[in-house]
């Protein structure tokens, strides 16, 4: 006679150290083995889309900061590009250059937190602190420019809120020189640590076709080995002028598309961001950063979908304009929201300890998932 068994339901979150905020996972476990993962969202639903409908176009920018709060500039960037496309604004060269440098600095800052918290989830707390220390350098560069540490409201429709500081170029170069050896140090400390590899290689394998079908993007998609980066494949701003590579998961430590690959893609992406910054920072043309900002933002009737490559993937803004000063509808296609959906697929049949490794490697920000 077979024994009747019952699965234990374990609630992970919303208050749990490794759910990166207020995600709640409902795990059905059998001993330590996870049979099913059901994510429950909405613990940080801040009604962005309702606010966007009630605000004027330029007033929405600060709210976009708070979507993916680790990559605020990327959010501003996407929104500004979308409205500019709708209105047909051409921004000055100087603005484009500064935007790209800032976005890449922000990408590094964001990846630092992502990598660090992935390590911290697996138990390596110290690299997390090191990476936060390095992040402070980036924050201080941006703070000197626009006065805020995290939520900048920096990229405006048609321009920027502030011109760069006279010291900006020197400090950015200093940072690039400081940061290059740090990546090597990080590799030695964490990436090629035997235990870390054991914990992440061959765990949570995401095949390419599943990833595409689930709409995954960013490092989550590239970790599966496909070279798809909006900066290259659907170029926006001036990214087509720079020479950089798109790192993809190659399965160095296990299978293509495992957690280690996704982790590694982020590190290699930071190197490429440094390359872009190096190329851009020497060529910033002179000019006024606010000359193209329209006096009154009133786009014509129409719809636009504009997407940019945020650190976490494809950030898209779908804007419907009804010809008034308020947007009729703003929908955010948040990369974390879409990437998180893969979690249920990846976690089947793994152990409880793997769930957090997988979740860390997908790298979600709840502000963006719940909006």
């Amino acid at each position, binding site marked *: 006679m077979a024994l009747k068994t019952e699965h234990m339901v374990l609630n992970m979150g919303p208050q749990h150290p490794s759910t990166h905020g207020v995600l709640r996972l409902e795990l059905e476990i059998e001993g*330590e083995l996870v049979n099913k993962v059901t994510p429950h969202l909405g613990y940080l639903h801040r009604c962005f889309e309702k606010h966007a409908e009630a605000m004027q176009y330029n007033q929405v920018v600060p709210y976009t900061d708070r979507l993916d709060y680790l990559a605020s500039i990327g959010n501003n960037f996407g929104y500004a590009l979308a409205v500019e496309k709708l209105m047909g604004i051409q921004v000055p060269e100087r603005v484009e250059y500064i935007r790209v440098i800032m976005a890449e600095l922000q990408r590094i800052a964001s990846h630092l937190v992502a990598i660090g918290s992935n*390590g911290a989830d697996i*138990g390596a707390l*110290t690299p997390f602190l090191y990476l936060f220390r390095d992040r402070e350098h980036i924050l201080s560069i941006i703070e000197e420019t626009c006065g805020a540490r995290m939520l900048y409201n920096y990229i405006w429709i048609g321009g920027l809120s502030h011109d760069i500081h006279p010291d900006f170029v020197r400090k950015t170069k200093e940072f690039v020189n400081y940061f290059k050896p740090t990546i090597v140090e990080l590799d030695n400390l964490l990436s090629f640590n035997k235990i*870390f590899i*054991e*914990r992440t290689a061959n765990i949570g394998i995401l095949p390419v076709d599943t990833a595409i079908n689930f709409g995954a993007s960013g490092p989550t998609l590239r970790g599966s080995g496909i070279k798809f980066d909006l900066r290259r494949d659907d170029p926006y701003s001036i990214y087509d002028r720079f020479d950089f590579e798109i790192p993809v998961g190659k399965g160095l430590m296990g299978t293509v598309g495992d957690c280690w690959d996704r982790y590694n893609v982020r590190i290699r992406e930071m190197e490429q961001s440094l390359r872009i910054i190096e190329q851009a920072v020497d060529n910033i043309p002179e000019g006024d950063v606010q000359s193209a900002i329209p006096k009154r933002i009133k786009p014509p009737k129409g719809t636009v979908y504009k997407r940019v490559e945020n650190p976490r993937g494809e950030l898209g803004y779908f804007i419907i304009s009804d010809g008034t000063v308020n947007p009729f509808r703003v929908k955010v296609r948040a990369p974390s929201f879409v990437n998180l959906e893969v979690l249920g697929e990846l976690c089947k049949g793994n152990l409880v300890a793997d769930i957090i490794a997988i979740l860390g490697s997908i790298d979600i920000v709840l502000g963006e998932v719940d909006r």
Partner: protein
Amino acid sequence: MYQYFYDLTGNTIIATLIVAVFPLVNVLLVALIGVYLERKVSAWIQDRIGPNRTGPLGLFQTVADFLKMLQKEDATSTEIDSKLYNIAPVLVFTGSFAAYAAIPFSSKLIGSEADVGIFYVLAISSLVVGGILMAGWASNNKYSMLGAMRSAAQIISYEIPTAIIVLSIVMFTGTLSLDKISDMQTASFWNWNIFGGAELGLTKFLMIPFMFIGFLIIFISTLAEVNRTPFDIPEAESELVAGYFTEYCGMKWAMFMLSEYGNMFAVSAIVSILFFGGYHSPIGYLGNSIGVEWLIPFEQAFWFLAKGWFFILVQMWLRWTLPRLRVDQLMSLCWKYLIPYAFVNLIIIGIISLL
């Protein structure tokens, strides 16, 4: 030890009290200094400063923590099994505290000069498992339960390689008494077991590599037995919130903490007794050279504590550097690697000792 203090004071009661209280004081001190050091060491490793507001250099931080925990409400869930819930921390603490009875701090400072010292320590420290299981079960919390299960599996598995290595030392020295094992490694660090023991000859040199292997195995497995990173899966913060003591607060939780640090020192002490000469100085005694006989036990205690603290620092260093293993990897490390190597090591040491 009792005799020593009886001679010193001439009173049975005082002598007994001193003998009984000394390990307790030591455990408390170890926890007090250990927690402070842990925070400072982690701060230094992580490019921080660490506690520095409470007293000079933040030295009273742990005192403040302890006093605060005394004041905390004893909040419990209504669904707990209160008997087991209340016994568990006491049992865990007893397990780690009782081990101190047989540990020789110096040639005079030893609770019980039992002939089966090492056997006693191995046996009594298993009491901890019972306490942890009780804590996990009685808390009526799924995280506690998972943590307790992991912990039980882990501690029981890792006792095997520990025991095998202890066995090989026992075979080599021919005694179970911790006191005698220490005494065999006297005079110079060259006589320590890790360097093949005191007897000169071919066997000593043959022994060295296998003693090193033995030391590594016992260090790893004792690390696992006291639930330290990279083997801290029972209380894995990012997975199980706080493992088996998730539901404990205030002083009851402090007892778990005390026993953790107590255990850390205990296993460090065992490792240093088995392989690093116990309380014996590596370079000879000042007391001998200047002819002050009574100084020697104090010097021995100093060396013993120094060795113990050295290993605690190594444990902390590992904790703040390495990631954590997964539960199945932990088991496979034990059963597939440590135990077979320990067995082979045991046989080879046995053969060499026969030579």
